[in-house]
């Protein structure tokens, strides 16, 4: 069972300072240009912690980087040898993780260990502590209520924070969270009944605070029933700008490609890079044949994967409602647009 504590806001920085000594600290920070990104905290003193804006990307770049070396190779007359390379990040505490991004990490945990244990993701995921932050006020494009993983996180966090104004209600979700509370007990006090009630009140308010109605359930049902008209895919494929941005900012998109990059005539590196199922080259075979009709069927697959196949396989869609693809989509072919088109009778 989880236990509840109170952390006064005055004690947040002192706590982070302690945590920063025990872990590599990664937190959402606003940079001098005004963008908020998860970044490594170099100094607790000067960090511009930003808990008011949605980090423009999830933790995916940290746990499953856009490009990483998975092996180095040497190839010459004498032979051909590949040596695996593993990043070994120090124990890392990710602070201020929203419920959508937490849900996405749980999804990636499954994807990267279910069929095959994927050493690079699991290596980066190993020794991580996740400190969640519940969203009292959903951001403009969010719809995690519709994907049923927010606005307050239900799973995944070691510690979960709720902003009660001058203090945080802290819930220890997993063992690592309890460890933190018991290691630095000076910062925590027991939560009172009123504070827990207040959290529930905030949760209800947050649920009412969504600015977008995205009927994910309805789209899932219509896909399951095969009721989505082919014209929908046609329309989406006409508008899609083929940038791959939706897959890259999506916290649950895990498609990748593997390429060799030579460094010299006799050596090189094998890279694993993000890829997107919407690209024609994603499925095109060496001879030029493409089993997936470019654009139309590729886009269809993207949405079916998230809202049909993963529902069948995992019991829930692999969209976590973070709204980032709505923020970035060039052509207006994001998941909310799809849900809207699919929901039309």
């Amino acid at each position, binding site marked *: 069972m989880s236990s509840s504590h109170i952390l006064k806001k005055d004690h947040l920085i002192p706590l982070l300072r302690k945590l920063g000594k025990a872990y590599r600290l990664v937190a959402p920070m606003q940079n001098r240009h005004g*963008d908020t990104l998860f970044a490594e905290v170099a100094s607790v003193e000067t960090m511009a912690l930003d808990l008011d804006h949605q980090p423009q990307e999830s933790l995916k770049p940290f746990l499953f980087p856009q490009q990483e070396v998975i092996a180095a190779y040497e190839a010459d007359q004498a032979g051909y040898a590949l040596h695996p390379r593993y990043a070994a990040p120090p124990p890392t505490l990710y602070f201020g993780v929203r419920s959508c991004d937490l849900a996405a990490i749980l999804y990636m945990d499954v994807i990267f260990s279910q069929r095959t244990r994927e050493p690079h993701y699991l290596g980066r995921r190993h020794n991580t502590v996740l400190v969640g932050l519940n969203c009292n006020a959903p951001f403009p494009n969010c719809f995690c209520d519709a994907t049923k993983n927010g606005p307050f996180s239900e799973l995944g966090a070691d510690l979960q924070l709720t902003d009660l104004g001058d203090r945080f209600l802290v819930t220890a979700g997993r063992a690592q969270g309890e460890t933190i509370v018991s290691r630095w007990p000076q910062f925590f006090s027991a939560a009172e009944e009123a504070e827990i009630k207040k959290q529930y009140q905030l949760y209800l308010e947050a649920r009412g605070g969504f600015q977008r109605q995205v009927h994910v359930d309805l789209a899932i049902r219509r896909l399951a029933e095969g009721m989505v008209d082919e014209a929908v895919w046609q329309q989406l494929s006409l508008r899609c700008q083929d*940038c791959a941005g939706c897959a890259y900012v999506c916290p649950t998109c895990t498609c990748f490609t593997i390429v060799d990059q030579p460094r010299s005539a006799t050596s090189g590196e094998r890279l694993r890079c993000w890829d997107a199922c919407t690209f024609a080259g994603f499925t095109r075979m060496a001879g030029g044949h493409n089993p997936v009709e470019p654009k139309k069927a590729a886009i269809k697959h993207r949405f079916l994967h998230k809202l049909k196949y993963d529902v069948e396989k995992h019991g829930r869609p692999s969209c976590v409602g973070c709204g980032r693809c709505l923020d970035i989509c060039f052509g207006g072919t994001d998941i909310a647009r799809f849900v809207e088109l699919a929901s039309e009778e």
Partner: protein
Amino acid sequence: MREVLTTCVYCGCGCGVYLREEGGRVVGATASRNHPVSRGNLCVKGWHLHEFIHDPARLTTPLLRKNGTLTPVSWDEALDYTTAALGRLKADHGPDSLGVLASAKCTNEENYLLQKFTRAVLGTNNIDHCARL
């Protein structure tokens, strides 16, 4: 991992892009959420902006044609050879025998310096770039 805001090098839109650096290598690119042009998105070229930086085909040393073949040489040798050749042509055929192409892919500072170099050092107005192409 570090993210540095820069400006995309492809088309004239001028998107704000973060380059991700890890261990001295540029390993990723992502859009700036609040940049007035990119507003969080990039085209396919922008999302893959990092891919050519460490390409093995990058030139890494100066080359000088020796016996018909481009051969790696030191910077001093390449610069000396160049200034001697430019100086000789200018002396023999006048400054207008020299021409310079600047680049729509280089920075303002570089273009400024190059036109200054062309006009003030080489002594010709024969400078242009592919604005019309």
